[in-house]
């Protein structure tokens, strides 16, 4: 039994070391926790894991170098004596022991290799292993296959070898052919300088330039095509750590060839290691420096530099450069059809040379130039087809050698930008609008267009009668001014004012009345007889008002857009913003003030009081307490208002916090008493801020513009100056403007008069008087000089006349030099004439003086001749006198000269009259 038991024991195979038997009462040892487990290397040194547990990367001292000081320096040996055997350092010199050990990246241990095996054998194995390594689930595991696999070669191989087969050769009968040139053995390690090609190993195969007849060659080794599908999840071409490449393998990856990269990868896969490139030794691979127990880290050393890439297309191999598109230099010189046949380059695989040449490219000759073609560009002036221009247009067309039959047959050159834009369907550019029409809505534009046409017709009808009427208008006395322009209206409105206009659309009844009014006007009835169209229920005053209103409206719509466009600018505010900031209080309309000034009723009538916020700093600097310590406003307070509200343009008294509030309220009370019961147009507009009523907006806008234009005296003359230079229609427009300035006088100022002068209760009739009184004031205010000019010649008023009148008037206006012209461009009072200008004019004067003197002398001479004839005996005396006089004159002019040069003060303002008097 014992034996059997022994035999049984012998049968058992035991693996590992047995656990120590547990002793009685002893506690079971706890397993050592992971963090306390240590790793030691073969020499018992502690190994550290690179940063995997410690959180850092601490390669270097702990696991590699061995000393804290760093690398142990090899003892220096002077190269003086030992120059010959210079040691070339290889990668191994920088490797750790582990790297050279069995599992390192460059194992040095003796592995199971055949003694006889050439390196080609290794290659075969490598190839197989490589393929397997790529395919295998764990890369690099095939390294163990060598250990497990048989150490001896198979019988078949032995047999083959005995038959003369060598590894690397193909199997089969020897071939008699020119051997394909073998590349220098890639596995040869060359450190430092490359050996000359003749000295390399295996040169016996290569160096046979001569080819003896009897030499046969073994057939090429056929590589089995590996058809294993890709089953892993690695990237294409990814290889794990390849120890064989670290030292012996060529670093094919070093140079990333963009063009052959793919094929190289595959060839590597197949095991055909190509080493055509200059080899650089180095250790590559993904796993370098990664610990055994670590997961793969990012390859922090991999730097992707541009130098790795090809920047130019270069020949793949020096021999065959004619790939694909091929360098054109080869056949560049050859012409035409022979080209194909001369093509000796390499033809791409899958292609063949064309047997037939393609048809030659047909060359089309350039079109022959027309006979009258002129090879330079000229810009045709844009001519609007009009009555006045037709001659000019014709002439121009003839001059350009091109006759256009009419606008219908316009070529594309005849189109202007807008027409082209229309044809192209482009949207209009936003820019400075050329005309008032741009600011109007579609409907208004239509209306204006019609009116314009009507007015143009009318203008053509009677262009002559206008100036006289205008002059009559200007010189009209205040009493009959209204009547005058009413009659004027009758003349002008005869065919103007279409029914399309609805200025009183808010009030249909009124609109109807207006239309009737206009209709009858067209029929040529007198304005005064038109009162039957007015509302009989209204008071006389109101009827008068309405009639006036109708007249004005008709007048307004008669006016052409050109007069208006000069008075508008593009909106200061964005269109989509409904509210704008406007000063809360505005200075009231000046018309009533004008009358007040005229009546010398300064005070309440002429004064506007506003709340004004000085800057805080300004108060401090002036040592004044801030009157509005809580407000953040500076200047006049502003309020947001509806943009299209009439209130922006009219000044309607609002209850404000100002001092005059009480009085204003009083005024309003009295106003409400005075107010007529029937509502007028303006009352309607007061109640509902009519946004869309463009008419009232127009009127107010025009009025505000007109007010500003009226102010400075200088521009008035300027306007006239420009007016004369332009042709007839603009003059008419100018007159229209004048008329409009008068007709545009707001009906509102009546209310204003009521508002302000509430204390002394005025009757409506007196207000009308005041209204009429304003007309002469404005005309008077426009400029006195122009008035004079008008009196002198009523048909036209031009700049020259005003100039002559002013120059005739006195000394102050004498200097007509550059300085005054400059000053005339500015607004407001000019600077007094500069001294230099005075001197300038003095020079002129002196010249004139000399001339006069000369003339005087002439006359004197003539007289004297007569006298000489009569009284010859007094000849001597007279001559002497004459000489004396002449010398006197000269000396006087000399003295003026000298005084002039001495001091700048003399005789600046001398008028020619004065000089003559002297």
């Amino acid at each position, binding site marked *: 039994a014992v034996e059997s038991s022994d035999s049984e024991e012998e049968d058992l195979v035991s693996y590992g070391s047995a656990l120590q038997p547990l002793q009685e009462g002893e506690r079971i040892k706890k397993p050592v926790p992971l963090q306390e487990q240590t790793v030691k290397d073969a020499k018992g040194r502690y190994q550290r894991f690179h940063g995997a547990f410690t959180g850092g990367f601490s390669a270097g001292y702990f696991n590699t170098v061995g000393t804290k000081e760093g690398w142990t320096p090899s003892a220096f040996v002077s190269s003086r004596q030992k120059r010959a055997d210079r040691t070339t350092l290889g990668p191994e010199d920088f490797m750790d022991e582990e790297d050279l050990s069995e599992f390192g990246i460059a194992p040095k241990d003796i592995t199971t290799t055949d003694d006889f095996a050439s390196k080609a054998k290794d290659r075969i194995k490598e190839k197989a292993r490589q393929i397997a390594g790529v395919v295998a689930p764990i890369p690099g595991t095939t390294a163990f296959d060598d250990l497990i696999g048989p150490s001896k070669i198979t019988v078949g191989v032995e047999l083959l070898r005995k038959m003369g087969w060598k590894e690397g050769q193909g199997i089969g009968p020897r071939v008699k052919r020119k051997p394909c040139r073998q590349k220098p053995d890639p596995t040869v390690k060359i450190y430092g300088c490359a050996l000359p090609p003749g000295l390399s190993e295996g040169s016996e195969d290569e160096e046979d330039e001569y080819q003896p007849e009897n030499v046969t060659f073994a057939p090429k080794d056929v590589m089995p095509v590996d058809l294993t599908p890709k089953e892993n999840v690695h990237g294409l071409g990814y290889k794990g750590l390849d120890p064989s490449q670290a030292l012996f393998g060529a670093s094919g990856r070093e140079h990333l060839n963009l063009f052959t990269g793919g094929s190289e990868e595959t060839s590597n896969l197949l095991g055909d290691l190509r080493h055509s490139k200059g080899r650089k030794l180095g250790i590559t691979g993904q796993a370098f420096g990664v610990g055994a127990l670590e997961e793969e880290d990012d390859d922090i050393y991999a730097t992707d530099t541009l130098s790795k890439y090809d920047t130019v297309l270069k020949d793949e191999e020096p021999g065959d450069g004619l790939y694909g598109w091929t360098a054109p230099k080869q056949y560049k010189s050859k012409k035409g059809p022979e080209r194909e046949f001369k093509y000796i380059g390499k033809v791409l695989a899958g292609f063949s040379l064309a047997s037939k040449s393609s048809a030659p490219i047909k060359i089309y000759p350039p079109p022959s130039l027309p006979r009258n073609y002129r090879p330079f560009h000229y810009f045709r002036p844009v001519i609007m087809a009009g009555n006045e221009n037709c001659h000019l247009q014709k002439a121009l067309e003839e001059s350009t050698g091109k006759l256009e039959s009419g606008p219908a047959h316009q070529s594309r050159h005849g189109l202007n930008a807008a027409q082209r834009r229309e044809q192209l369907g482009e949207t209009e550019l936003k820019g400075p609008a050329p005309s008032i029409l741009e600011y109007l809505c579609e409907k208004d534009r239509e209306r204006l267009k019609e009116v314009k046409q009507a007015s143009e017709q009318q203008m053509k009808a009677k262009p002559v009668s206008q100036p006289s009427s205008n002059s009559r208008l200007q010189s009209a006395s205040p009493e009959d001014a209204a009547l005058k322009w009413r009659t004027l209206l009758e003349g002008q409105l005869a065919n103007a004012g279409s029914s399309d206009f609805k200025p009183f659309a808010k009030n249909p009844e009124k609109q109807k009345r207006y239309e009737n009014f206009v209709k009858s006007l067209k029929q040529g009835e007198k304005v005064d007889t038109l009162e039957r169209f007015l509302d009989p229920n209204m008071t006389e005053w109101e009827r008068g008002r309405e009639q006036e209103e109708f007249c004005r409206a008709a007048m307004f719509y008669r006016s052409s857009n050109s007069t208006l466009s000069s008075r508008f600018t593009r909106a200061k505010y964005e269109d989509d913003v409904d509210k704008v900031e406007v000063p809360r209080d505005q200075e009231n309309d000046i018309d009533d003030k004008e009358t007040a000034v005229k009546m010398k009723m300064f005070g309440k009538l002429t004064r506007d009081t506003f709340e004004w916020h000085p800057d805080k700093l300004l108060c401090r600097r002036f040592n004044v*307490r801030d009157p509005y310590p809580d407000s953040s406003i500076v200047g006049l307070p502003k309020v947001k208002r509806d943009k299209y509200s009439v209130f922006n343009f009219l000044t309607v008294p609002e209850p404000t916090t100002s001092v005059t509030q009480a009085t204003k309220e009083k005024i309003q009370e009295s106003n409400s008493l005075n107010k007529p019961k029937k509502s007028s147009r303006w009352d309607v507009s007061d109640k509902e801020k009519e946004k869309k009523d463009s008419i009232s907006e127009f009127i107010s806008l025009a009025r505000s513009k007109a007010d500003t234009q009226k102010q400075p005296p200088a521009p008035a003359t300027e306007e006239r100056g420009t007016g004369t230079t332009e042709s007839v229609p603009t003059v008419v427009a100018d007159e229209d403007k004048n008329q409009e300035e008068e007709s545009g006088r707001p009906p509102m100022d009546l209310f204003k008069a009521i508002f302000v002068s509430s204390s002394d209760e005025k009757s409506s009739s007196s207000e009308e008087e005041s209204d009429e009184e304003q007309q002469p004031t404005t005309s008077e205010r426009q400029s006195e000089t122009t008035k004079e000019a008008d009196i002198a010649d009523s048909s036209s008023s031009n700049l020259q006349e005003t100039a002559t009148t002013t120059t005739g008037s006195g000394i102050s206006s004498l200097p007509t030099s550059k300085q005054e012209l400059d000053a005339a461009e500015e607004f407001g009072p*000019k600077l007094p004439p500069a001294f230099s200008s005075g001197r300038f004019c003095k020079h002129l004067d002196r010249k004139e003086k000399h001339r006069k003197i000369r003339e005087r002398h002439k006359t004197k001479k003539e007289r004297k001749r007569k006298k000489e004839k009569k009284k010859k005996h007094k000849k001597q005396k007279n001559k002497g006198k004459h000489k004396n006089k002449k010398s006197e004159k000269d000396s006087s002019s000399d003295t003026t000269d000298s005084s002039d040069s001495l001091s700048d003060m003399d005789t600046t303002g001398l008028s020619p009259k004065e000089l003559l008097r002297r």
Partner: protein
Amino acid sequence: MAFPRPRPARPELPRQRVQTLQCGQGAVRAARFNADGNYCLTCGSDKTLKLWNPHKGTALRTYQGHGYEVLDAAGSFDNSQICSGGADKAVALWDVTTGQVVRKYRGHAGKVNCVQFNEEATVIVSGSIDSTVRCWDCRSRRPDPIQVLDEAKDGISSVKLSAHEILTGSVDGRVRRYDLRTGQLFSDYIGSPITSVCFSKDGQCVLAASLDSTLRLLDKDTGELLGEYTGHRSTTYRLDCVLNEQDTHVGCASEDGHVYFWDLLEGSLALSLPVGQGVVQSLAFHPRLPCLLVATQGQVTLWREDTFQPE
């Protein structure tokens, strides 16, 4: 028992020419007394500004630094600084003694017609043809004005300051008075373009000269017309108006080479002083004495009362 007050001396008007300053600056755009009337400034069209002792007839200093003609100048209360404005759109602050530009304020869009210091010379108020009045800070270094008074619709021709008011005359025919103490703006409509405005010495009245050849004396508080003075000619140029040292007379330059004085109360023409042939470019009245500074034709003349005896 109070003695009757001695009768105030009858106001005398300057009738006698005692000094002539040959400025040599081209046209003299403005002649201004300093705060105490001992010195005067002349603004030339040759871009210079000159400081004079007009009583002795000596030129003291020339200030150069404007880019174009100088149109107005004013001296500070302590005579340490001068401000000036010119056609180069700049307002300059000068140091009197060194003659250097301390600061230049740029911001006006047009000629600066008129400049004034406030009482303590901490603010320069300038009026320009660009229709704004700008208040520049002399204390800080800020380049932009403290406040811009842009209520005028046309160029500012004249600016005057009192302790707490800014009085402006504009070409749009309005005299505006900004009262800092009450925070109000009073705008009086005159109609004709204003060429010059000034406060009376008692600060109750405002004198405004306009291009309709009329001087108007307005009550400052109500804006009512107190007096109207005509007889001179002022239709084209920006001419100055003055009040004499006792507020008894009103004076104005004229385009016919005279300076006219009217009795303030009666409105009657008191004196027509022929000062030259050309336009009287600028006027300045001495703050305490019957002494008038007149600029015509490139020269400045000083006029005193008849009884004055030059030593």
